[in-house]
């Protein structure tokens, strides 16, 4: 059974006369899979994430996650956006612990078992290369470090599904590549399922098992590419011929999708 099954979904913002964001949208994701979503700007990629997490409800079709139809926000997901939006009055560690103060399963427990959760947070910090930075405030961290902490926050409640919406868009090329490796290793070492929305085609080809290309608004899936490269993948894959062919193919597909709009 699929972890995520989005079946013929239509979603319109702002009432019957509003913007039709996605239409005839079909997405299936297996457990443990890493799926990247690319497409022209404004085609409904963020809408797809909001539908999957239950932040938005479709007018037509069904969104089923982990065997249950999504009718309200579900806490088996962790989310990270381009803007890391750490709360500046909390230390990095307290920012990472924030989801636990919300999620039903943990919110009572964290008061009595704080130590255990702090250990979990520190373990995550170590995984993303931020060991020892927990006591720092967000403004004391660089953009790349904040985004690492943001990943920890998305993962702290051990979500089954990690949703990343252009998480590295604001970072410089080197920091971005470092974080690709962080995500790659996180995915390799846990059984988390990842949906990554990105406009960076190389990022999608480096990280994903499958790449979905979306049409211009109203968004639907135009093409579904298996990414053939063996894991574990190293950064020198970026200079591989087949890799660049795939990236070029994706690029022209998106250009066509945009022009057809």
């Amino acid at each position: 059974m699929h972890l995520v099954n989005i079946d013929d979904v239509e979603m319109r913002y702002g009432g019957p006369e509003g913007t039709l964001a996605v239409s005839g949208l079909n997405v299936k994701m297996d457990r443990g899979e890493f799926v990247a979503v690319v497409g022209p700007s404004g085609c409904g990629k963020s809408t797809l994430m909001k539908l999957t997490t239950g932040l938005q409800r479709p007018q037509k079709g069904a969104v089923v996650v982990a065997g249950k139809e999504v009718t309200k926000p579900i806490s088996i997901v962790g989310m990270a956006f381009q803007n890391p939006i750490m709360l500046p009055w909390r230390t990095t560690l307290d920012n990472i612990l924030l989801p636990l103060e919300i999620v039903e399963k943990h919110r009572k427990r964290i008061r009595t078992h704080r130590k255990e959760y702090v250990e979990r947070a520190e373990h995550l910090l170590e995984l993303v290369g931020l060991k020892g930075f927990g006591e720092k405030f967000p403004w004391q961290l660089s953009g790349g470090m904040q985004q690492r902490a943001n990943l920890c926050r998305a993962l702290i409640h051990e979500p089954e599904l990690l949703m990343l919406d252009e998480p590295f868009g604001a970072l410089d090329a080197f920091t971005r590549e470092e974080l690709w490796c962080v995500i790659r290793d996180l995915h390799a070492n846990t059984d988390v399922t990842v949906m990554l929305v990105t406009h960076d085609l190389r990022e999608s080809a480096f990280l994903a098992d499958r790449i979905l290309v979306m049409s211009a608004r109203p968004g639907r899936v135009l093409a579904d590419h298996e990414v053939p490269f063996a894991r574990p993948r190293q950064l020198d894959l970026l200079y591989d011929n087949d890799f660049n062919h795939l990236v070029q193919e994706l690029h022209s597909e998106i250009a066509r999708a945009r022009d057809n709009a």
Partner: protein
Amino acid sequence: MSTDAKGLNFVKLAPWIYTAALFAIWEAAVWIFNLPVTFLPAPSRIAAAIVQYWGPIWSNSIQTLYTTLLGFVLAMVGGLAIGLLIGWSRSIYAGLYPLMIGFNAIPKVAVVPILIIWFGIGSIPAIITAFLISFFPIVVNVATGLATIEPETEDILRALGAKKMDIMIKVGIPRSMPYFFASLKVAITLAFVGSVLSETVGSNTGLGNMMAAAQSRFNVPLVFAGLVMLAIEGIVMYAIMAWIERRMTGWAHRSSMG
């Protein structure tokens, strides 16, 4: 290094130097142009008046400080509560905001006679006027802090199953605190305007009343003595608010959040 230290010292001393210079120029102008004391008394003459009338000046200053602070504290509590309420719900916002703007537009000097009819001559009209005039900026600031929460923050928390109350407690209230404390500096200054206004229009105590009475007896140095006391009270209270602001919300100055 030594020039740095000197520069720093100068910046620290600057307010005193400028104040001293203002009074010196003022004193000189009065002598040079031979201004009559009923027009503009020299600072030395005002100082003499402060010494001469110290008893009533002191008791009236305390009275004004008391009504101002009481009105200000009410505005602080009420402003925070209403600000959070307005930020909480769009419909409360839509309903209350125009009312408050209208109310804020009414000149408070027109309200004082009504307050006197209701509560009689005394401290209460001054307290209420101070409250009314200083309450609005606090409400607006707190509501602004809530209204400018990043939508992504809300999305992340809502996706985790957060209720509105969770978002309010975890994000809304802490986030609006810098706005709240910043508004206190404005509010305390306005509170003085309110209480003195009320004392001037109708009261038998306070610096406003003292100055009105002195004016009708052409005791201009005493009027100015009242002004000086008000300025001192205003500066001290402002400094206290600025200090509290820095103590409570240092993080807001370090981070990029406005």
